[in-house]
């Protein structure tokens, strides 16, 4: 997730007072933007078609199925989205299982935003890794070799006749796919996977 852009939040909560209060608190420091609000699940389903967002914040009292991970079953299309529960009081632990974070209405706004930030940062969708995620493309491998040889972004762009912007986006994808961030780490990856020999470095 791009860190510079705001996290878009959808709120599903019956009380208008709480909805408005949450919106105000979350938007306080500019990291979050509440893109839409609904009073219940049918309203959300009817009106939230294809709107992209990063977090849904839902009152778990609206979920009547008391079984673990009910939240994920109710929103199969949103497996890439952080699910946050907004808690007034008691909720059974089964219903809460599957949420990525739990906010209490007694939390102050800083605490709420910290919890959400943490959930966004640590969110990993383990259930599915999309196919395009698995291997480096041939182009990415070429770029990786250049990175391992110590070329700067400018030099890589010139060598492969692409823009610096494209180089950066390739490098982001390489890091996303391999999990490796540092240049020396990427160099090791390239050698261990036979993309380049130690002598060519």
């Amino acid at each position, binding site marked *: 997730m791009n860190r510079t852009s705001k996290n878009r939040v959808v709120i599903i909560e019956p009380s208008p007072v709480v909805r408005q209060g949450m919106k105000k608190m979350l938007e306080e420091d500019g990291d979050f933007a509440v893109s839409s609000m609904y009073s219940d699940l049918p309203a959300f389903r009817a009106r939230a078609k294809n709107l992209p967002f990063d977090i849904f914040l839902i009152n778990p009292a609206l979920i009547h199925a008391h079984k673990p991970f009910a939240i994920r079953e109710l929103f199969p299309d949103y497996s890439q989205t952080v699910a946050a529960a907004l808690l007034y009081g008691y909720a059974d632990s089964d219903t809460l299982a599957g949420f990525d974070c739990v906010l209490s209405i007694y939390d102050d706004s800083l605490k709420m935003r910290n919890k959400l930030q943490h959930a966004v940062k640590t969110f990993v969708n383990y259930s599915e890794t999309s196919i395009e995620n698995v291997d480096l493309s041939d182009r990415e491998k070429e770029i990786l070799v250049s990175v391992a040889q110590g070329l700067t972004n400018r030099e890589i762009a010139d060598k492969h006749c692409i823009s610096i912007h494209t180089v950066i986006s390739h490098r982001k994808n390489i890091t996303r796919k391999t*999990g490796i961030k540092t240049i020396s780490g990427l160099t090791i990856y390239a050698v261990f996977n036979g993309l380049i020999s130690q002598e060519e470095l």
Partner: protein
Amino acid sequence: MEQNPFSANTKAADMALANYRLLYVFPCFGLGLGLGDGTVKQVCEKNGVSVPLFLLVCNLYTFDNYSPNADTLMQIPLDDLMRYLQNSHREYLKNRMPEVIGQVLNLIDSSQMKNGKMLMGFCEKYKQEIIAHFDYEEQTVFPYIRALLEGKRTERYKIKEYERNHSNLDAALNDLKNIIIKYLPPECTLEKCRNVLIDLFLFESDLSKHTLLENRILIALVERIEHTLK
């Protein structure tokens, strides 16, 4: 962990039982085992450790969402905080880092890894990087803070500069984890890699808490002094 934070009346031993990672924190305060049933307050007073600082560090290391309020912050003695940070630097360089490097070396030897030298080079480079990082803090940042505490102002340096340049030390550890889990040759079996991986996970999470302590607590406290001296 989501519970009430530790307080001065918590038994120090209970904290270690609740969060075993504090076993790496205690020595940096000069505390060992044999704590008996002493409370935090008793143990700290006996050993000349600041209670608010000890609680702050232990809470930060234990509760992911822990964020101290302004009153708590005001009670933190800056010179003790710096001493703690310096002790943990020493602990990292003297014990943690050599342990990791030793285990990587073992792994390379026992599996006769072809490109083992590169992996060693990676670790050595990382070691130099953290040495430089700690040196900067101990030779530039901390002396600046000590001068501030004595009421001396220098125009040349501001804590903002530290904040801007404060690099993340955990990226290389994260890379090493990824390489070991995903990309080593089959001779490096899980059994051979497990200990070094567990050490890496622990070291990485300790370093990220250490960085949090510097970014959230140290910088905030120093900014307050800079402000009052204006």
